[in-house]
């Protein structure tokens, strides 16, 4: 009796394995592809509303909500002659990959959304890809910047993954060009955010295409507040400029502490800095001789009708200047709208097709064209800060 029980025990594992294989065969789904649209168009938001990236996620949420409010005010999106309103379903992914995958699964399966906006970070973004691809629901990330984000392992494009922002290589090399040509900086020190792909990716791209000498590359972590040690170590390196890719909360402090330490060389950054809070944190006096690459310029905005309207609407709604993250998120929603109107259908598969075909779309962040790799192409400008205010915007070709 005992032996047989043991045999059962030993055989248990194999039995389970066999069962697993059987299950794999029998669970094939026979659903039709994608989520068809109902009376309203459902847009899901998979966003970093808590956790490390919550600050950026919440800015994006504001942009999304503003866009949807405006669209619904006008009666909704015109789907083949019929106006349909947007229902927004906002879910928090805690800045965590596993939660992002779960949120995406809920959005596409339970909420049956037609398209997703988000997430803000590359990590959370890649985590949702398997689930949305299975369900054939497209997503537009306002700010996932890793060059490979939209690509499969084979290098083919992910059919349902789009972004509204630049990828790192483009922005990094533009900054390198600007530093070398426009600022005539021959020696540059790099100080990059090491806690996400954003800072390191940009630093890598910058290093690759910069023609001058890189005298030092140092890293900081998200949430760091003291950069005096690194900046002091830059002091005797005879640098002409500092390239500091990262987000405004840390770069603001870097600018402030650099100026206090008597480092007055140009500081060049990326669109994560393009936020009015940068100058507030750095102090307007320190925020001089500061440059950053950005698609969205508050200065250029005055000439661009779409951007100007957005700026005013945002200020009316939230009582503050619009940050770049909100603008990108606002554009993401409108890109989905454009895709629906062009395809005359709000079915998720059709939206994906429409998104891939977007050309010269007039967004807040410039004229957007989606290329074959689902990257957003749009003009890039370098904004100059003087005394905390944008004093010039140079377009880089």
């Amino acid at each position: 009796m005992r032996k047989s029980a043991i045999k059962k025990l030993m055989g248990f594992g194999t039995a389970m394995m066999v069962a697993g294989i059987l299950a794999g065969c029998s669970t094939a789904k026979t659903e039709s592809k994608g989520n068809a649209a109902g009376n309203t168009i459902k847009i899901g938001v998979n966003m970093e509303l808590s956790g490390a990236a919550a600050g950026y996620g919440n800015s994006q949420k504001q942009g999304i909500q503003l866009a949807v409010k405006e669209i619904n005010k006008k009666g909704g999106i015109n789907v083949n002659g019929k106006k349909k309103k947007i229902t927004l379903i906002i879910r928090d992914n805690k800045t965590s990959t596993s939660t992002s995958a779960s949120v995406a699964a809920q959005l596409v399966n339970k909420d049956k959304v037609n398209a997703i906006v988000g997430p803000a970070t590359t990590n959370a973004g890649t985590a949702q890809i398997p689930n949305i691809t299975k369900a054939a629901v497209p997503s537009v990330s306002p700010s996932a910047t890793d060059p490979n984000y939209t690509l499969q392992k084979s290098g083919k494009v992910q059919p349902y993954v789009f972004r509204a922002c630049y990828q790192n290589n483009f922005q990094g090399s533009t900054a390198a060009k600007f530093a070398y040509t426009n600022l005539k900086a021959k020696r540059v020190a790099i100080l990059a955010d090491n806690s996400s792909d954003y800072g390191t990716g940009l630093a890598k791209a910058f290093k690759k295409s910069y023609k001058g000498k890189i005298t030092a590359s140092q890293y900081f972590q998200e949430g760091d507040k003291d950069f005096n040690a690194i900046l002091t170590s830059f002091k005797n390196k005879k640098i002409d400029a500092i390239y500091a890719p990262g987000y405004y909360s840390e770069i603001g402090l870097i600018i402030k502490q650099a100026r206090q330490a008597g480092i007055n060389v140009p500081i060049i950054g990326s669109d994560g800095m393009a936020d009015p809070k940068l100058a507030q944190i750095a102090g307007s006096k320190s925020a001089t001789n500061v440059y950053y690459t950005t698609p969205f310029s508050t200065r250029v905005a005055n000439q661009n009708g779409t951007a100007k309207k957005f700026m005013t609407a945002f200020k009316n709604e939230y009582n503050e200047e619009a940050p770049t993250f909100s603008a990108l998120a606002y554009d993401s929603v409108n890109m989905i709208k454009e895709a629906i109107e062009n395809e005359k259908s709000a079915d998720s598969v059709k939206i994906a097709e429409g998104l891939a075909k977007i050309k010269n779309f007039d967004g807040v962040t410039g004229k957007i064209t989606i290329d074959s790799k689902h990257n957003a192409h749009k003009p890039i400008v370098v904004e100059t800060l003087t005394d905390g205010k944008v004093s010039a915007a140079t377009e880089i070709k």
Partner: protein
Amino acid sequence: MQIFFQQVINGLSLGSIYALLALGYTMVYGIIKLINFAHGDIYMLGAFWGYYVINVWHFNFVLALLSAMVVCGLSGVIIEYLAYRPLRHSPRITALITAIGVSFFLENGMSYLFGSNARDFPQAVKQVNYNIGGVRISNIQLEILLTSCILMLILQLIIKRTKMGRAMRAVSVDNAAAELVGVDLNRTISFTFALGSAMAGAAGVMIGLYYNSIDPLMGLTPGIKAFVAAVVGGIGSVPGASLGGFLIGLLETLVQSIGLSAYKDAVVYVVLIVILLIRPMGIFGKNVKEKV
């Protein structure tokens, strides 16, 4: 050489902040053997209080500092009363989880109420830089260094010279025996929390002023660092916490200045482990052998 002294100044001013936070950890741990995970978040509360009163009620710096200490002290007492006191006789790991819960609650509650964006702290004191032989030091750095030293001194005096301090020391050695000889356990523990949290509140306002940026998650990283500092110094020991704080501050500065900033935290943890291996109870910790 100038650079070297500059880095020492940088390290000391960073270290004084860790030291100030580590004091709170060490006091609470000394008395009820609880790693008060929410300590870093009380520091965040202090910073937000300072932000509020300076912006809205136009308090000056000293008043903001003192009021933040009072408010944080009070919140420390309330947290202890609600979340830790019911668990005083439970396994210590339970109280640790509650402390983590309190930390989550404060972080996310503040994010919910005030948004999770970083915001600039009002400059209640104008920054002036002094240049001494090529080494730059600002009045705010001096102020932080001075204030932390004064607070540490006061703390040491309270613990060594007052009746309440004696009660605290008694409780930390043996709370049952202390109660037998007439020490009011609840009052002593509340007082310890008030004192430790007040330190954190002071640190919050000073850091807000120094770095000019506060956000609901600002307590997380320095909280863990300060805890490491307290352990390095010998958790439970006040001079140990101060020493540990300065040590970690100087160490981080050293690592960054030689270009290893990507491994800054890793080096701190390596040093932590090495120190613990040499002195398992930290630098100033008493090695209490179990009696057989």
